[in-house]
């Protein structure tokens, strides 16, 4: 198995976006992530699956150093983005997060207008030189978020007034507006109904054209539908990482098999 992984890594090396090696995360006394190695490819959807509490979200939050905001959290190991160590002293998490955007479990539009929600990132990062620039960015982002048609006539209304699915697509559009290279999604559909979920999944598939997308999901069906690569986490270990087809049709590890056949919940 090891040989196979090695082989695959070499093949895909040309477009690897993020490389993680021996990553460990401690929450106080809890050892949440144990020695995880993973490579995340560009322009691909990578899904992290696993039972609750397996550490998949924690690991995701390492990729843009969101764990820095939690006092008791300690991250060790190497995570490289385009070959540069993101945990290095010289790297500003602010800049990192502009490059690695994030969408959260619960839609969290700011209590501002739809326009201001999208313009938030470009404004703080100074990406727009003029109001016209900003208008262009907002429209482009909303289009990429597949929500433009629904909101173009009410950009000045609060983002909190949208439905759940619209709010989540708004949040995706907001993340896209800062022109990230990687988009992290932490169970983006868990708070949504099936129709909204389908819309968001469709959107994720489109985003793959331009970004490297990492999605944490609870639902194996969702992983199967949207991702090309899948990583299975269990009790803080990365048990198996492979092409999604492989994971679901031919799992190498017995734990993966138990999980996808429903024996571990």
């Amino acid at each position, binding site marked *: 198995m090891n040989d196979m992984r*090695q082989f695959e*890594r*070499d093949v895909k*090396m*040309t*477009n*690897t*976006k993020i*490389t993680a*090696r021996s990553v460990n995360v401690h929450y106080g006394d809890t050892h949440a992530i144990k020695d995880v190695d993973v*490579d995340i490819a*560009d322009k691909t959807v990578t899904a992290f699956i696993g039972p609750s509490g397996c550490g998949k979200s924690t690991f995701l939050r390492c990729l843009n150093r969101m764990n820095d905001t939690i006092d008791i959290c300690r991250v060790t190991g190497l995570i*490289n983005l*385009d*070959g540069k160590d993101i945990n290095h002293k010289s790297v*500003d998490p*602010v*800049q990192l997060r*502009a*490059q690695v955007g994030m969408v959260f479990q619960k839609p969290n539009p700011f209590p501002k207008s739809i326009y201001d929600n999208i313009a938030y990132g470009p404004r*703080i*990062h*100074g*990406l727009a030189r003029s109001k016209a620039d900003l208008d262009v960015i907002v429209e482009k982002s909303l289009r990429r978020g597949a929500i433009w048609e629904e909101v173009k006539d009410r950009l000045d209304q609060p983002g909190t007034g949208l439905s759940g699915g619209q709010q989540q697509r708004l949040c995706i559009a907001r993340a896209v507006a*800062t*022109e990230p*290279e990687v988009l992290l999604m932490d169970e983006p559909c868990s708070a949504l109904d099936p129709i909204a979920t389908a819309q968001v999944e469709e959107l994720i598939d489109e985003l793959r054209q*331009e970004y490297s997308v990492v999605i944490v999901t609870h639902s194996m069906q969702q992983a199967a539908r949207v991702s090309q690569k899948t990583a299975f986490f269990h009790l803080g270990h990365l048990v198996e990482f492979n092409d999604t087809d492989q994971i679901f049709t031919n799992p190498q590890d017995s734990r993966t098999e138990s999980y996808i056949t429903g024996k571990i919940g």
Partner: protein
Amino acid sequence: MTDFTTGAGVPRNTTSTELVAASLKRRRRKQSRLQWIGLGAISVAFLMLFILVSSLISTGWQAFTQTHVTLEVYVDPEEIPVDRLPRGGFDDALAASLGKMVPGVDMSDRKTARAVESILSNGAQFSLRDMVVADPDLIGQTITMKVPVSDPYDQLNKGLIERETPEENRRVKNNEIAWFDALVAQGAISKPFNLALFKNADSRFPEQAGLKGALVGSFWALLTCFLIAFPLGIGSAIYLEEFAPKNKLSDFIEVNINNLAAVPSVVFGLLALAVFIGWFGLPRSAPFVGGLTLALMTMPTIIIATRAALKAVPPSIREAALGLGASRQQVVFQHVLPLAMPGVLTGTIIGLAQALGETAPLLLIGMNAFITSAASSPFDSATALPTQIFIWADSPERGFVSRTSAAILVLLGFLVIMNAIAIYLRQKFERKW
């Protein structure tokens, strides 16, 4: 491990990465400016508290001692005959003994005699009188007694009157300083702890003014306040939290309580003045009326705290007791209330601490009267600690400045103790469900 340099080449959106990088320094600066302003704001608040406390201590600590002079008093039967007690020339006896200690004064000159006599506190003659009345055998004997000096000399001794000040701007003249220095040289001057501050009630003379009346008045008022507000507050809170149907009336009561908690205290004073004193004819200046008024103000605090404490008791305990066949009242009084008691007591103590410092309503019901004896019942006229502070702060005599500060320190001392008890209760009995 394999070397994993990326071959992806130049990142796609170089420009935005550069823009972000370019903005970083400015944004970091902005954030640290915000942090510094915040830290500055906190420092200002701390500085103010520091100035407040240090100014109180620096002016107040002097009032905890009082300059005394030790006299050898000959109780002259001519001046103080047994048959005229309690009247008699006690002041002359004191003056005569003082005259012997002060060099170079002609005590037969009435003006000089009066000036010398004014070294002593006005209260000294009454101390002597009380001693003699208690034991008439002292007449004809020479007794040694320690009496307080009057305020200007007390200030001189404490260095509050600068000797360098030009004589015409100084309350103690050069010759008077010489007299005092002579007394110091004879070792007659001492500066013991100022017991009078706690043993005496108010007085027009700073050196005799004490807090006893105010402490007793505050005690009666707080006792009344507690006896009324505690049961009413708890009863009300239990009803609203555990039994009241959720309807318009209970909503109205709730809004009412929240608003009452924010009504200015002086309005409660007006209520007390119009209703308790004007309509019910209760006595003015009485701690009972003060306590009644404070109770109305404290009740919302107690209600709010009690409800929070009751809310914190998990429903599982109620359900368990109800399941065993207890009535709802039994559940509340036997299970829920005892568990909520630490929270209730904490809230009550904090409410009482607020009541102890409350001044305005007490002024309106006349608890700022000048009363020279401590109240013996809650219906007697009295002052309270905060109103006493107000009276003294308003008094022109220099000696009252440090007494005001001292009274404030005493008040703050009580508040610190009460809050410490509340914090102790909270921490000792705090439960995580």
